[in-house]
């Protein structure tokens, strides 16, 4: 007699009875979803941004100095290590990437601020960039650099064709890329190795920051990595770009207590969600006491009433999640645009927050459920 469709409609009808109040309740739920989304977003965003360079590396393995405990460490290695790696049959090419921190003069304010420079042979295409063809063409001209358009504003507005001053020398901006800043890097300039040498950076070309190892298709990368590491002096690291990314995330978490900072926020958001859900259901049950009492008088079991409340809780979680997600999505976009922090809203992350929302509402529902079974048919009269 009490088919499942009936049960659902009881829960839904109870919720929808007072629409304005429901809308209000849902907006509260939605904001707790936003809190959780934001806290998770910043946590992941900072980690993703710190590790961003690793995802650009166009290589099977990346060689670094052993002291390069993170990507922004300025430890360099002897270029001869790259030559030694070339000695392995599977290795097709090892691209040297030089890096340095140099002062760039903001063309508008005239103030010089330190910027990150990467240099490499222009034909080597070391970074996976959507416009790598035009970057290559631009870098081939000596004295020409490519500027990261998403660099922080302290470097001023830089347009292609403009001249900029780096370390008291003038360079022509040949094009723009979108690499993005993070907590270590405020801006990036790319140049060819020839331009690098022409600029007489103190690092010269003997000390290399990254060696990008490219292998024959079908090579067994882990085995090759082990063989190179066994054979070469112990002053290098050899990692796949994905390993570097993961290592970078671990380092960031360790270096700054991000987990604690955003974890606390997330837990508080979750608790608020439980309380709001409880409150909504409690009010709803109080308002509908006569209805629940009638249901009981009609012979519906306590189990049915409990189920109804839990279903309401689940409805709340779904209905609160959707606007929360939409609002969170907008905020993510704004934050990424404004701060350069990568705010990826991946399916996995959405699913995680959705699970949290469901658990949150389920807990709120389970606390509220006690009240419904106190509905007393006798009190109706």
């Amino acid at each position, binding site marked *: 007699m009490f088919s499942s469709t009936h049960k659902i409609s009881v829960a839904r009808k109870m919720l929808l009875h007072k629409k304005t*109040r429901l809308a*209000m*309740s849902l*907006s*509260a739920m939605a*904001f*707790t979803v*936003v*809190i959780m989304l*934001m*806290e998770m977003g*910043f946590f992941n965003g900072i980690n993703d941004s710190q590790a961003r360079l690793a995802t650009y590396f166009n290589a099977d393995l990346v060689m670094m100095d052993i*002291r390069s*405990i993170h990507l922004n*460490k*300025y430890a360099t290695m002897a270029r001869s290590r790259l030559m030694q790696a070339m000695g392995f049959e599977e290795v097709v090419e090892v691209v040297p990437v030089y890096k340095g*921190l140099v*002062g760039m003069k903001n063309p508008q304010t005239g*103030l*010089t*601020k*330190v910027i990150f420079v990467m240099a490499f042979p222009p034909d080597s295409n070391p970074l996976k960039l959507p416009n790598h063809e035009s970057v290559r063409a631009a870098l081939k001209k000596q004295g020409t650099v490519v500027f990261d358009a998403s660099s*922080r*504003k*302290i470097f001023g507005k830089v347009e292609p064709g403009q001249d900029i001053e780096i370390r008291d020398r003038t360079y022509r901006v040949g094009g723009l890329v979108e690499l993005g800043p993070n*907590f270590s890097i*405020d801006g990036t300039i790319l140049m060819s190795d020839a331009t690098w040498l022409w600029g007489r950076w103190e690092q010269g070309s003997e000390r290399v920051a990254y060696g990008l190892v490219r292998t024959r298709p079908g090579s067994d990368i882990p085995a090759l990595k082990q063989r190179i590491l066994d054979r070469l002096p112990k002053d290098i690291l050899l990692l796949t770009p994905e390993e570097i990314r993961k290592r970078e995330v671990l380092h960031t978490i360790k*270096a*700054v*207590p991000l987990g*604690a*900072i955003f974890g*606390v*926020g997330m837990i*508080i*958001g979750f*608790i*608020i969600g439980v*309380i*709001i859900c*409880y*409150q909504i259901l*409690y*009010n709803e049950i*109080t*308002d509908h006491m006569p209805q629940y009492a009638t249901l009981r008088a009609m012979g519906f079991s306590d189990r049915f009433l409990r189920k109804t409340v839990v279903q309401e809780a689940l409805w709340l979680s779904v209905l609160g999640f959707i606007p929360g997600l939409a609002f969170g999505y907008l*905020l993510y976009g704004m*934050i990424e645009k*404004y*701060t350069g*922090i990568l705010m990826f809203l991946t399916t996995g992350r959405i699913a995680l927050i959705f699970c949290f929302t469901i658990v949150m509402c389920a807990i709120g529902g389970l606390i509220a459920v006690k009240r419904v079974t106190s509905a007393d048919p006798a009190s109706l009269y």
Partner: protein
Amino acid sequence: MTIPIARKNVFQNKKRAAAAVSGIAFSVLLVFMQLGFLQGARTAAAALFERFHYDLGIVSERYKFIGAPDRFDKMRLTQALIVPEVESWMSLNISNAWWKDPDTELSSELMVFGMTLDQRFIKDPAIRSGMDGIRKNNTVLVDTYSNPGYGDLSVGREVEVNEKTVTITGQFKLGVSLFSDGCVIVSNDNFFRLTGNDPREFNYGFLRIDQDADPQVVKEKLKRILPNDILVFTREEMIQQEQDYFISVKPVGVIFQTGVVVAFIVGVVILFQVLNTDISNRLNEFAILKAMGFKSWFIYGIGVQQALLYALMSYFPALGFAYIVFKVVHALSKMPMDLTPAMALLVFSMSLTMCVISCILGLQKVRRTDPAELY
């Protein structure tokens, strides 16, 4: 007569009141946390510059922040003495280095601070008292807030800095986790030897001026006589610019400010919801009051008092709880987390604002109470 009505309304259903209060309290707590982290980042960013007594600071015109200070010619400090108000100078130098714990052979990043050993400039008592210990070659003061990977930091222990053996002669507390794994303070002599930096160039110059001189005036004089390859800041500007770099350029600020705004909105929504429910449940009672001749403003007053009660009952437990959470976060992460009276006041006024907004939104219904509807 009036207070008991609001109070009785709030407490009539204790469970509901508890849920409402805890909901609002948690959003207030979240506001506290976000402000605490923001404040913590601000403090950590400029912590070093608070450890010294000085009136003016000189840095290179290419100065960015403590992690990229660039260098200026040490001659500029001598030139600064031409201005009669300038009494004396000290220099502070910063370099990245490597720390090695000889027991574990573990290398960690390190920031070495080299400075002129001049009592007058040093505010931090631990650094002051440790100063005489680092006059000897290869001696360091170590920051006990450094990464645990640094190993045992007790006085007398020998460790390696840039592959040279140094002896720990004292300790201090700073915390540089935003920039490096840890730090040590050494004399300038040891600094240039350990780092190999050019001793003719400095990162920071701190100036003390005559007690009755105005730092702004002296700053302008210095800017006029010194070449424009340096920047001159007052102490406040120095600290301000360091914090601005982190809060606005990096930008740490927006992360926590977003958190504050969202937590505030949640608080408003919860309070509004509670008020709205309370009032709709009591429309009959309010109608009776009206019928008895009480004016609308009296009924509004009850609503406002209820909102105030909720806000106050939420604020104080949140304040206490925030105090504990701040302590815990500081103990776990060494992040400076201070619940300042200013912050407590700011959040208190935010709680009151929550109350006002939710009253404006939530009390609309009271107007509609109509005694005629009772029957």
